[in-house]
């Protein structure tokens, strides 16, 4: 497959001795003349050197692992264990049916219930998932592709469990652009996806001011083999679009911009990843202040969390992945990440095990407590090379943003499959680089061992999570026992709101209170946008 046509000008030539992975030409060494004058202090505009002026206190970044599996009860036990082990935030992932906004009793869900995350469907699930947790002290982040359902689930649970909703800290993802193509498709038309995102952001600006209502997640789509420049450019295209939509609604920029965060990928090109974080903060700050007119300094400094790359991990010699995770986490700490998750070393061949979770957490704790790296803010600041690379990344990301935005409305690019083609091209490029040996991966195309010798940590792969089929019958039972009249009434209200211009958050909360399910509410929203209730034509409205 050929390199995607759209970005021929900015695409990488791959990693050579003389270029960074995203194509920045590199010199043999850097001197004072290569870097611009750095008179910027950490904690000040343009936040290249970090959001804060003081060194990170103990636990200065949120250390967490992605968790959640099986049913809410099983996941709640897992969460309580992780908190007891010193984890300072939760980031829960939901299973494939929940990501796709399908109930566990949907025919396509039968083999996927609870295997790759926790299965969620209705209000009782949300309560069960988050019970007995100090929601006033920890952050609750969600790795659910649809922000509206993630937010309402957390909202309903926190309210019922007696926590002040306006004090809640945590985050939801908003992926209206790329989610349909490269992760879990929810089959709501583009306009509807954008609207759901904006409704959440507008609601939180008023009601949940401490909650990050818009996490731009560049991790998901960059796992399609994107380089760091492409990753951030596509991310910014989405951020800029949603910000403009919010401004069109008349929501003041400073009421929501402080609660935008970015979750980035982190690959193996060490200094490029450090520079990516620094360049991203600088770009965001300039964009918010100079282009969107934000006045509040909190609107300028964006928090960047990261999940280390699963694509960079190998099924061969899985122990090597522990080293990869360590190096990636180190580059993130040096780049000033606000929260870090290390991909499970077993991720290349299974949904991460508990052992892998713990190891990811321990890696971060070793960096924090034993190495002394965190004593000084931005220890690489002023490095000729890092400053030069940061500026080069900034320029390249901005150029690519302009190039994409110059192609017309992003909605048209999405609907016409332009981005999908782009992702197909980048993954093909990634694999051909590995196959040709242009990109070296130890254990894959360099320093390989025969399978018979590749046994270290291999046994973990064989322990698999089977589908939680009991959930299916439990959900059917739940649906039989509720008052269907109530459900229909609440769904009708969701439908009317979705057809009009009101905010969807409270109608969706009310629908959960009336015991409607995620599948039913999302189906109703699909219908309101002229799409089928079920994209797979297998289930009908209640």
């Amino acid at each position, binding site marked *: *497959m050929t390199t995607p046509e759209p970005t021929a000008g900015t695409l990488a030539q791959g990693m050579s001795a003389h270029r960074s992975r995203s194509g920045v030409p590199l010199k043999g060494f850097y001197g004072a003349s290569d870097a611009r004058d750095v008179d910027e202090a950490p904690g000040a505009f343009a936040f290249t050197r970090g959001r804060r002026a003081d060194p990170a206190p103990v636990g200065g970044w949120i250390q967490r692992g992605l968790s959640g599996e099986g049913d809410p009860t099983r996941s709640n036990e897992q969460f309580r264990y992780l908190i007891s082990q010193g984890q300072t935030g939760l980031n829960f992932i939901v299973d*494939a*049916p929940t*990501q*796709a906004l*399908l109930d566990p009793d949907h*025919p*396509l*869900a*039968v*083999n*996927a219930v609870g*295997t*790759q995350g926790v299965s969620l469907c209705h209000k009782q699930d949300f309560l069960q998932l988050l019970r007995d947790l100090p929601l006033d002290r920890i952050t609750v982040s969600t790795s659910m592709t649809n922000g509206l359902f993630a937010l309402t689930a957390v909202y309903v649970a926190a309210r019922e469990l007696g926590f002040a909703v306006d004090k809640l800290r945590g985050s939801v993802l908003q992926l209206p652009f790329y989610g349909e193509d*490269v*992760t*879990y*498709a929810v089959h709501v038309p583009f306009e509807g996806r954008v609207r759901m995102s904006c409704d959440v952001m507008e609601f939180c600006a008023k009601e949940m001011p401490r909650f990050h209502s818009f996490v731009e997640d560049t991790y998901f789509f960059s*796992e*399609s*083999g994107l380089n760091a420049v492409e990753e951030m450019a596509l991310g910014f295209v989405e951020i800029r679009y949603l910000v403009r939509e919010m401004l069109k609604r008349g929501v003041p920029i400073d009421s929501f911009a402080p609660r935008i965060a970015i979750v980035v990928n982190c690959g193996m090109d060490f200094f490029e990843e450090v520079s990516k974080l620094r360049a991203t903060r600088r770009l965001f700050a300039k964009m918010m202040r100079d282009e969107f007119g934000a006045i509040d300094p909190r609107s300028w400094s964006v928090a960047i969390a990261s999940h280390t790359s699963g694509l960079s991990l*190998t*099924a*061969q010699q899985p122990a090597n992945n522990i080293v990869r995770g360590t190096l990636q986490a180190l580059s993130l700490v040096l780049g000033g990440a606000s929260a870090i998750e290390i991909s499970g070393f077993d991720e*290349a*061949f*299974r*949904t991460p095990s508990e052992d892998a979770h713990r190891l990811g957490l321990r890696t971060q704790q070793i960096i924090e407590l034993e190495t002394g790296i965190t004593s000084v803010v931005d220890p690489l600041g002023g490095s000729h090379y890092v400053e030069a690379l940061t500026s080069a990344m900034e320029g390249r990301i901005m150029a690519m943003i302009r190039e994409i935005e110059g192609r017309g409305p992003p909605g048209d690019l999405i609907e016409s499959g332009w981005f999908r083609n782009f*992702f*197909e091209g980048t*993954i*093909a490029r990634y*694999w051909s680089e590995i*196959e040709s040996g242009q990109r070296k991966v130890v254990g*894959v195309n360099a320093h390989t061992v025969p*399978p018979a010798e590749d046994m270290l940590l291999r046994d973990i*792969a*064989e322990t*698999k*999570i089977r*589908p939680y089929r009991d959930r299916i019958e439990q959900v059917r039972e739940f649906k039989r026992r509720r008052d269907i009249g109530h459900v229909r009434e609440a769904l009708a209200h969701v439908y009317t709101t979705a057809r009009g211009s009101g905010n969807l958050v409270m109608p969706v909360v009310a629908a959960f209170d009336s015991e409607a399910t995620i599948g039913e509410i999302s189906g109703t929203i699909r219908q309101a946008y002229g799409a089928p209730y079920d*994209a*797979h034509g297998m289930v009908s409205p209640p």
Partner: protein
Amino acid sequence: MNSSTPGAVRVLVGMLGLDQHEVGSLAVAGMLRDAGMEVIYLGRFNTPAAIVRAAIDEDADVIGISTHSWEYIEYLPELMNALSKAHCDAAVVLGGSVITASDRDQLLEMGVAAIFGAGSASQDIVAALRTLGATRRAGLARG
């Protein structure tokens, strides 16, 4: 005369259930196309019944299932049964890094023709599919 008697191997490429990590599947489809095969791309969200039907309608030589989740463990027996019930002789191959060594043996026993795990070279995949395609065509020609 049949439209697919001469020429290219016809391969279905698709995924089962809610397995949604499609990039691998797309990349393989492109690779097989570039190797001169006719790829009938089924994408995501397929049931075993839909795959069998497509294999028959399309006179496919090979059915390629791309997998990134463990759903395949549950779906494969159903798929193999449905194929034999429908007298469909397309060869089934499975690709994905999540397939572990012990699964591999079980799958081969079930009648899966080939399994491509992590690190499979594209030339090996292409060669195996060409052989499977040629074997099926030879069988058809003999009647």
